[in-house]
């Protein structure tokens, strides 16, 4: 009985003991906060990257002359027949260099001379299928088939919007900027109608034949200081089918608006246009380069579906026979994801050192206390306490330190993790210094995800750490020769 009573009394009457508790509190709160932020970082990065990449990407390496090289429909049909695939669409991805119309080649020359600008102006042209017109007409068509007595087939319309998150990225571009002065975002420039992104923008008055429309990544758009309806010129090169020599080619486009995936890489260099338009620009060299697939449940069976698609398509002779022709989105960004995961683990290890420091403070305070309380230990022995009882009394002090410190620390850490965004904003506004530069990262707020298992592990770890560091002084207390203390004053 006296163990818990005395340990609590020592804890409350000797304020230095609370330093150990505060140490555990700070360590646990910091660990939970940082790990929550890193987990949030990882999860949000995955979400963002996945949104712009779809689930599975098929890059058929077919030899020239193969019929499926010029027609994505066999592959699309094979993929769509797989029960795990929800939607698939063809994309034509090609590289290009962007120049602003009017000044002709000068900016391109600049960009070739200036490596920093050069990297920006090299753009990734993505030709996509948008079949909104068919989609919107489908209910009418279905009604007509039904009226004619036939059973309407399920809608076969599958386009970019089904397979990737482009529609969300187009709609996201409509969102206005951030609230704080420090976090101001440029004026949003969305497309007029996200369902028809490549329609001629309203107010566009072409002097001659209307130019095909493109949609740019928001950051690229603002970096170039463009406006809607601005004309841009793209330079690219394709091999001449006859000679095999690379032939440069250029074409002018009109800017219809922007998209925002929040993935910097894509927002800084991506440019979407109609697949047919891009194929035409490339002189019919390739009508598509890849097929992107959205699965019903990627997390559950992504790897399995990937393997099955690979086997399936190979069996039908629709792939070139290489192993990397079917990839998951994670394989595209494996390095970035692994880097964040590494950072998370390293942060955890580094912050665990804070816990060790807290443990050492418990160790130091208890060691001092054992020396200071020598006489009390002698008295307790005289009154019938066993060495084990004395040891437990001192262990109990660390027990309370660990218990209260880690539970309060968990509460504070969770609160900090949940409120980190407003806290950071308030700090940034108060100090006039931007702590978290949102333009550097993929997202516009500090993400945080609380993992209950991690919280439990941290609390348990902190608790055990306190006990572990208290074990040595407690053991010393039990081995003290109490008589020395009792005999003399």
């Amino acid at each position, binding site marked *: *009985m*006296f163990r818990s009573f005395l340990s609590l009394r020592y804890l409350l009457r000797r304020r230095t003991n609370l330093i150990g508790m505060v140490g555990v509190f700070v360590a646990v709160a910091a660990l939970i906060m940082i790990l929550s932020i890193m987990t949030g970082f990882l999860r949000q990065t995955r979400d963002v990257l996945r949104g712009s990449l779809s689930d599975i990407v098929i890059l058929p390496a077919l030899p020239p002359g193969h019929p499926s090289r010029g027609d994505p429909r066999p592959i699309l049909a094979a993929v769509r027949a797989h029960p795990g695939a929800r939607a698939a669409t063809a994309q034509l991805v090609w590289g290009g260099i962007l120049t602003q119309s009017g000044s002709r080649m000068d900016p391109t020359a600049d960009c070739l001379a200036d490596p920093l600008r050069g990297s920006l102006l090299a753009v990734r042209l993505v030709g996509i299928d948008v079949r909104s017109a068919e989609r919107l007409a489908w209910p009418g068509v279905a009604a007509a088939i039904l009226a004619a007595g036939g059973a309407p087939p399920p809608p076969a319309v599958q386009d970019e919007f089904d397979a990737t998150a482009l529609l969300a990225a187009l709609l996201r571009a409509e969102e206005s900027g951030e609230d704080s002065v420090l976090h101001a975002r440029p004026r949003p420039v969305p497309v007029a109608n996200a369902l028809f992104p490549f329609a001629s923008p309203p107010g566009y008055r072409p002097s001659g034949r209307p130019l095909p429309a493109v949609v740019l990544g928001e950051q690229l758009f603002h970096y170039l200081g463009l406006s809607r309806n601005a004309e841009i010129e793209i330079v690219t090169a394709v091999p001449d089918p006859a000679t095999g020599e690379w032939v440069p080619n250029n074409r002018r486009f009109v800017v219809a608006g922007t998209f925002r995936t929040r993935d910097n890489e894509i927002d800084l260099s991506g440019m979407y246009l109609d697949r047919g338009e891009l194929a035409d620009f490339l002189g019919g060299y390739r009508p598509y380069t890849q097929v992107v697939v959205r699965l019903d449940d990627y997390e559950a069976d992504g790897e399995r579906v990937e393997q099955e698609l690979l086997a399936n398509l190979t069996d039908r002779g629709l792939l070139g026979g290489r192993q990397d022709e079917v990839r998951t989105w994670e394989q595209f960004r494996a390095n970035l994801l692994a880097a964040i995961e590494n950072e998370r683990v390293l942060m955890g290890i580094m912050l665990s050192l804070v816990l060790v420091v807290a443990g050492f403070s418990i160790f130091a305070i208890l060691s001092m206390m054992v020396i200071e309380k020598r006489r009390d230990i002698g008295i307790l022995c005289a009154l019938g306490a066993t060495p084990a009882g004395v040891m437990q009394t001192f262990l109990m002090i660390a027990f309370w330190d660990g218990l209260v410190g880690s539970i309060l620390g968990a509460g504070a850490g969770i609160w900090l993790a949940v409120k980190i965004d407003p806290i950071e904003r308030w700090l940034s506004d108060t100090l006039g210094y931007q702590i978290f530069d949102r333009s550097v990262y993929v997202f516009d707020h500090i993400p945080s995800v609380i993992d209950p298992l991690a919280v439990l592990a941290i609390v348990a770890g902190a608790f055990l750490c306190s006990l572990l560091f208290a074990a040595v002084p407690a053991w010393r207390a039990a081995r003290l020769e109490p008589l020395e203390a009792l005999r003399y004053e």
Partner: protein
Amino acid sequence: MSSRPRTADPGGRPILAARDVRKAFAMGERTLEILHGVDLDLFPGELVALVGASGAGKSTLLHILGLLDRPSAGTVLLDGADVWNHSTVRRAALRNREIGFVFQFYHLLPELSALENVLLPAMIGESRLVFRSRRRVHRTRARELLGRFGMGDRLHHRPSQLSGGERQRVAMARALFNDPAILLADEPTGNLDRATGEKVLDLLFEEQRHRRLSMILVTHDERIARRCGRSIVMEDGQVQAAAR
């Protein structure tokens, strides 16, 4: 414990006995022997004064008799049983139940109030559940005991807020709380002025008579020794004379 006869019976079996007890301390290279073969009997209900000059080994003997210190040679018998054959836990339990200590310097725990200090032996001796269930009874008893020693209005004072005499009364109440058969007092008035010391001693002797305690009182004051039933004189680590 309550069944044990508490009458002064020098002819019967001693409740506490020392048999050829020696105690030596290592002082660097040399060993210093403080007790050179002490024999001592304490009979039930007996009040014995242990007198002698400073350094004669009185306190060392008392600590050995109180099971706080292990003799280098010889043995201590409690109720006829060799206590050093018992386990550490058993000896701790004997200290808790059978033996009460009163020290010269009171030795109260400074973080605890007077009442809590008195309750400490019960807290140590009983498990949490048992103590919880008897908590009210214990507190009433502790209040009564302190009240009997004139400390009724200072129950919640901490030792630092009490005078020397008051502290010693709290220490006495603590020593008697578990109703031990044996009380060992090591110069209980050595640190008090004469008037206060007299009052404390009166209380102590009254309790001894009332409870028929077997008690050893260490002192170097002849007047105090004369108030005891028997005096044992120690000199240079040996018992010199046992006078009635």
